[in-house]
Structure formats: C-alpha cells, structure tokens
C-alpha cells in the first residue's frame, strides 16, 4: 500500500515551466538533449506542482542534468545520487524525486546504493543514462561496455562481463523497470510519465548514444535493417508482437522465451504472451529484460511495474502508529521516562 502524496498543480503547466535559463553544455548530438526534451514534455503531464520536482545526480555527463532543468536540484558526488535521493524523499515525502545517473555512476562506484535503494523500494525515479562508456573522463570502459570492446583503458578489448541493468533491478527486488531508446522521444515521454506515477523505485534505463566515445553503440538496434526484428515494444495487456507488420510473437516454451511466426501454427498463436507489467512475480519480466539480439529482440517500454509497499510510506506509518500508542509525546516526556529521582 502506498499513495502518491505529491501535491498537484493548481494551474495547468507546460514545457516552458521547466525550461532552464542555463546553457546546456552536452556535446551536440548527445542523447542527453533528447532525454531533457522528453522530461520537459512529460512533467506537465504528471499534474504535479512544479516546486515539488527535485532532481538529484551524481557525477558524469548524465549528472549535469539538474542544472539544465528548472526544478529544485542537488548535484552530488560520484556514485551517491541514489543515497542522497533516498534522504531527500524519506525526509520530504511530498516531493517527486528524480535521479539522473549513468552506467559509471550507478553501476560502478554507486552500485551498492543502486541495489539497496531498489531493494527498499523508496519512491524515487532513476533515469539511468546507459551509454556504455565513461564520457566525462573521456572514453574508458564502464560496467555496461560490451565484452571485447576497445576503449582507452581496454586497448586490447575488455575482458569483463557487462552488467545488464534489468538483471540488477530484478535481482534487487525491483518493482519498476523500463527501457527506452534516446531516439524514441515519444516512448521516453510516456515512460517518464508512467514512472512518475509508480509507487516505489522506478528505474528507466535509457540507451543513450555517446556521439564522441561510443557512437552508434545501439545502431544495431536502430538501423533500418534490424529495427523491426531487434526491437519489441511492450504494452501492458497487449500480446507480445513485433517484426514487420507484427508478424512475430513471443511464447514461453520449454522454460524459455521463443519467437514464433504469427499465423503459422494455431497452437503457437494461442501461446503468445500477453504483457502483464503488474505481475508481482518477476520471472517473465526478468526473461524479457535479458532478451538480446540476435536470438531475441531487445524489450522496450515498461517491463515491470509491480505494486509493493514503499519504504517511505512504511516509515511514515510506523511513526504515525508510534505517535498514537507511545506515551512519549515530546522530548520532555522522553527525558523524564524510565527511572528518575528528585532532589529537593
């Protein structure tokens, strides 16, 4: 149980209410620009009061975001955005709290805070800019860089297995996970809005192109040749179809997800999965999060949005109930509680 307690705006807001007067210093062509645009478009749609949005970031290109949007914001230190945001939200539950972070910030130096924030299900939104590279320090491999990739610190190719953020989120008892491409502003806008409504930690992995150090890292998903085959856009309540003219579907058979051609076999058609983002069991969500080309398409959209208690709600409930039942109503009560004696 939990109810969003972010106060609503009395007047309708527009994108302009969130545009900052600061010069945006990301590289021309950086995926950050598209993300900023999507957020500015999505925020008025949430209905929340503009003063109640608060951005928190760590260090890296992604983490300059708070300076580029007109909300409250705190730009923290490397890796700690999720810990700072936890405090912001727990202390002030009326805020809609947004973390902008990257694959270095949240998967490497801040990995611990990332998983524990998710495990607690604190009601914040984490926009994970995954460009698979360290940008601000100029091109070192990150925990999401594909194995074998040549970067400035892996001149002979990386020998590390990369993280799949979806796997980390599900493994950390995550309640909300979505994946979007920075090139799909429309989907990004919708997902950001949906994330804002979720009670709990909402992780949105944004596959973001770094035009300087990892350009075209995601073009295998987006180029004309593969676009239809390698992407599936999930929508709650709808069958999992993809490919040109939705000619393919996804079924669960022999304990794994498989692709079937629609209309070839009645039995297979009946088995095509209907996406249930609210399923509390993360089993299928996890499988969907792990799907990768060339065997399977990459899943986009809201993959998981399960309803569980949030940490901040439970904490306030405990306080409320303690206030009702405890005899200690103020600090004077506390100081005089237990064994005391009077000297006259």
């Amino acid at each position, binding site marked *: 149980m939990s109810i969003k307690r972010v106060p609503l705006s009395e007047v309708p807001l527009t994108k302009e209410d969130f545009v900052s007067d*600061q010069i945006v210093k990301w590289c021309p062509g950086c995926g950050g620009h598209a993300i900023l645009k999507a957020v500015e478009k999505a925020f008025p749609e949430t209905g929340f*009061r*503009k*003063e*109640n949005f*608060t*951005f*928190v*970031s760590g*260090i890296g290109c992604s983490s300059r975001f*708070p*300076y580029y949007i*007109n*909300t*409250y*914001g*705190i*730009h*923290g*230190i490397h890796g*700690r955005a999720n*810990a*700072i*945001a*936890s*405090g*912001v*939200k*727990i*202390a*002030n539950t*009326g*805020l809609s709290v947004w973390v902008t972070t990257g694959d270095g910030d949240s998967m490497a130096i801040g990995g*611990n*805070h990332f998983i*524990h924030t998710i495990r607690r299900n604190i009601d914040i939104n984490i926009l994970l800019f995954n460009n698979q590279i360290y940008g601000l320090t100029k091109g070192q491999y990150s925990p999401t860089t594909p194995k074998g990739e040549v970067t400035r610190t892996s001149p002979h190719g990386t020998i590390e297995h990369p993280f799949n953020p979806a796997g980390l989120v599900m493994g950390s008892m995550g309640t909300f996970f979505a994946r979007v491409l920075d090139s799909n502003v429309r989907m990004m806008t919708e997902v950001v809005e949906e994330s804002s409504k979720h009670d709990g930690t909402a992780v949105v992995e944004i596959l973001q192109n770094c035009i300087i150090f990892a350009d075209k890292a995601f073009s295998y998903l987006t180029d004309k040749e593969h676009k239809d085959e390698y992407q599936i856009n999930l929508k709650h309540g709808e069958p999992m179809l993809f490919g040109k003219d939705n000619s393919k579907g996804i079924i669960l058979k022999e304990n794994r997800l498989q692709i079937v051609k629609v209309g070839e076999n009645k039995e297979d058609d009946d088995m095509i999965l209907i996406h249930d983002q609210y399923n509390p069991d993360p089993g299928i969500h996890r499988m969907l999060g792990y799907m990768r080309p060339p065997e399977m398409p990459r899943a986009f959209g809201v993959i998981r949005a399960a309803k569980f208690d949030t940490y901040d709600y439970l*904490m306030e409930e*405990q*306080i409320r109930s*303690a*206030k009702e*039942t*405890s005899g*200690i*109503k*103020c*600090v*004077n009560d*506390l*100081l*005089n509680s*237990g*064994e*005391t*004696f*009077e*000297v*006259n």
Partner: protein
Amino acid sequence: MSKNNNVTEKESAVIKFVGDSGDGMQLTGTLFSDTAALFGNDLATFPDYPAEIRAPHNTIFGVSGFQVQIGSIKINSSGDFCDVLVAMNPASLKANLKWVKKNGIIIVDVDAFDKKALDKSGYEENPLENNSLKDYKVVEAPISTIAKESLSDLSLSAKAATRSKNMVALGITGYLFNLDINSTYKFIENKFSGKDIIVESNRRTLAAGYEFARENELFETTFFVPKADLPKGRYRNVTGNVATAWGCLAAAERSGRELFLGSYPITPATEILIEFALHKSLGAKVFQAEDEIAGICSAIGASYSGSLAVTTTSGPGFSLKSEAIGLAVITELPLVIVNVQRAGPSTGMPTKSEQSDLLQALYGRNGECPVIVISASSPANCFYYAYEACKLSMEHMTPVVLLTEGYLGNGSELFRIPDVENLPDINPPIAKPNDPEYKPYARDPVTLARKWAIPGTEGLRHRIGGLEKFNIEGNPTTDPINHELMTKLREDKVKRVENYIPDQTVTGEDSGDLLVVGWGSTYGPIHTAVKELQNEGKKVSQTHFHYIKPLPKNTGEIFRNFKKIIVCELNAGQFVKHLKIEHPEYKYLQYNKIQGLPFVVHELKEKFNEILEEK
C-alpha cells in the same frame, strides 16, 4: 533492606566488575550504577570490554569490565584504583589486580578457579592459595554454586542457571554497599519485561547473593555512601550515546525541523542509532543505510529537503564520510556528524577510547574545507553539545563535527534533567515562499550563512551541488577570482561562529605557574588532579575546551597569564598542533597517552609536579 551492623560511611567508592565477555558484567555494572543513582549517589561509569562478543573463556583478552565510582561528593571520573574488585574468573583477576587499592576488597567466584581456568589465564599456581593476595581482603564465594542451587527448582538448563551467577555477584556487592536491592529488582523487571523466567531467575540469584553475604557475615564491615549533595532537580543516569541522541531530538523539537538520522552500525557509536530508532513517536526518521557513505549522503539529501540531518559514526566510518562532508561544506547545508572516537588507525582497537580523530575532523578532506568542530567532555554533557552542534549547524548553514569518545559514549553519569523549553532558541534561516531577494548563495551579512530554501517552497526553485558556485547567484563556475572569494567566505563563515560561542573559562586562579589544557573525555581526571594540587597550595589551573574550531576568542588572553601551559590528550598531540597553529605565540608542553585507556589522576599529578619543580 535494613542497614547492617558494622557500617563504614564512605564519601566515594570505586567498584569494578570483571569477568568473561559472556558473563554479563556490563549488565551487572549498569544495574549497580542505576541502583546507586536512584538512591541519590553521584557517579561515573566506565565500561571496558573486548571487541569479541563471546571471546574464548578464561582468557585475558576476553575479559570484560565495568567500573563505577559512586559518591556523596561530586564525582568527575570513574576513578583510578578500585576499592572493590569483583572477579568472576582467574583471567579477570589477573588482568585487573593492578587496579585494586592496597587493602582493597576482592570478591572472587571461587568455583571458577579450577585448574583449567588457571592454566588458560596463565596462572602457574592458584593465587587464592599461595598468599600472593595478602595485601588485599579476599572474599571467596562459591558464586556459581549459589546460582545453581537457587535455581534448582526452575526448569532451566545448567548453562542458563550458571549464566545468572552475575546476579549473585551483584547481590553480594549490593549487600556490601547497603544498596536497596528492591530498586534493582525493578530495573530487572523493566529490562526483561515479558520474559518471566528470566526475571524470576535474576531475582532469585540476586536475593541469594545478598542473603549469602548477610548470613555468612562475609565482610567485617559494610559500606554506606550517603546521598550526594546535588543541586535541586530531577535526575537520571545516562550514557553519552543516549544523551547525544536526546540532544539532537531536543534540537529538532526546538527548531521545528524534523530529525533525520542516516547511519550505519559501528562500535562504539551504534547505541546512538539504536536510541533514535526507539523513539519514532517523536517523529524522527531513522535510516539504517547500506554503508557509511549512504548514511551521510542520505543525511545530506534530507538536509537539502529541510530536515535537521544527523549522521553518527566512529573513526573508520568518519574516514568513509570525508568526501561527503566536502559536499555539505560546498553546498553550505546544515549537517551534524557525530564521531564517537575509538583507538585507531584503521580498525585499531574498536572498543577502546582515544582522541585521535581531531586533526581528521579539522583537516581530513580534499580542498579547503572548513567545518565547525566541537566536543563533549562528559556523558551527560553530550546532551548539551549535541544540541549545540545542531543549533550552530542550522543557524550558520554549515556542517558541524561533534567529537565524543567511546569512553563518553559508553560511560554514564548522573544527568540533571533540563526542561527542553529552557534550552536556547534555534532559528534556522529558512527562505520564505516567493522571496524576490532569494539567491542560492546570497548571505546574511553578519553570519555569512546562506538561506535554507526547502524543495516544495513556491518561487524558490534552485540548484546547488558539488561544483564551485558563483557567489550569490549560485551557478557553476571555474572563475578564479570567484573561487578564491568563495573559499574565503566559507572559512570566514566558520570563523565568525566565535561570536556565538561562550568565552573559555578557567577553573582556579586566572594566573599561575601552570595551566592544564584538555578537551573531551579527559575533563574528570584532569579536574581531580588539578583540584588536588590546588588543595596542596600549588598555582595550577585548568581550562578545558569544548569549542575547537573556531576556538573561543579569549583563548589567548587565558594562556597569557600562566608561566607554563601543558596540553594533555589521549593521542600523540593533536590539539596541541592546532593550538600551535592558532596561537603560535605560546609555548606548549605536552602529556600524551595512547593506550586506549583514560588518564588516571596520579599519573597526571606526577607529571604536573615534575613540571612545577622544573625551573
């Protein structure tokens, strides 16, 4: 309980309970102290225990001790040497014999002095049998047997029955000091409420110990320490860690800011976290973080969003928080960092006390990174200095490091309960909605504090962060002149706090041959040593610092009037370094001890006398 025949009145007495780390010595000492406190004795306690929860039996390193000094006079420390040692096994006797006064009483559990235990503790022969204890009054009691016999009809395992032997020891000691063990029963009932069998077994063994001492006329004479002549008021016994938590809660209430604690368990600071967690009814939000860094970072987030934010830790955790303290400095947010110091470096000696994080508190960060540093000097005044840390932090919009020590945090003393309404006002500079003048780094011209603009407030949306900011406007910049200006403003803001703290005071004459300087937990032993020398007619005075950065404005004036100055610290000389930087015009002598133990009065007196005799 009626008073026994032969009773000797004493104005103070030091009692030490020692045994294996699983023998329940901390509980025994606490119950003894609480009973004495409730009766009206002044007191100070010192728990001294190993890091291991259940160290191997009968070993020297597994010895756990709890020392308490009770008095009808003002008690300033837990005392150097004990009048009564209660030793539950050979190892604890061996480790503590050097702390017993000549002719002092040693109560031993004679059942525990078997061959195996003697061997493990390194005794070649039984000290109870070889006349080696002839300088003491040894009282041999079959403590384990008494425990077992008194519980024989309860359905308890032999092991569980033996575990109650500490209560037998407490009963015997209670008899020796004519304590009202009815109030000890009450403490036991409260502590174990709902666990009837434990209450009953403790009750019975306590009574059995008391009766054993009475029936067997165990002592030639018993002791009575009359009530202390305390100022009027309501009192309680309190540990420094509990008092620290309460001081912060009081500051939250008086400032109208909700309290947020972000913390991670670490010895010896954990009890502060535990204490906060108990009091949700006061609205405190307690976040047990995944690590020390998340503890402080969540607190910084909570501070940004309008709470009185606190993080509590000890040395190693303090190291982990360094980078984040820098963030709180540059964002100019209120934040209280409590460091219950322990002996270092690294893991060091977690359960032993030291004052060796002072320079780290002052300087241990990247960049020019000033914070206010204050310290408490007794378990009870942890309450006031925690309150002061919160007040200064919020009113001056800067992090404050509050240094306490394991010795203060775990130690306890009588606390005269204040009325929270009488504590000083706290007025954080909170920005008003739609303030047309609001700029993130615009400052109060007197304090240089910026305003606290809390998210959610209409018309004040702004960004702060770890990047250097333009003064007033607050946008990120690397402008060289601005960086120098901001660096100086942050330093000056902390410096100006000297206008808001009390003058430094001197105990004794304002001038003389020797001024003894201390800070932190050493107040008690230094005070006692200085008083004794003053009574001998020597021109010695004491000044004890609580405000370290900034120092009180009159520090130099005080130093000027003494021929010699000695700085006493439980480290290799850290505060003295600070004084040499801040007041290089004076010469400082040093007395340092780095043993994880408090000062004892006689070593201080010896040193001071030596200095006084030097020409």
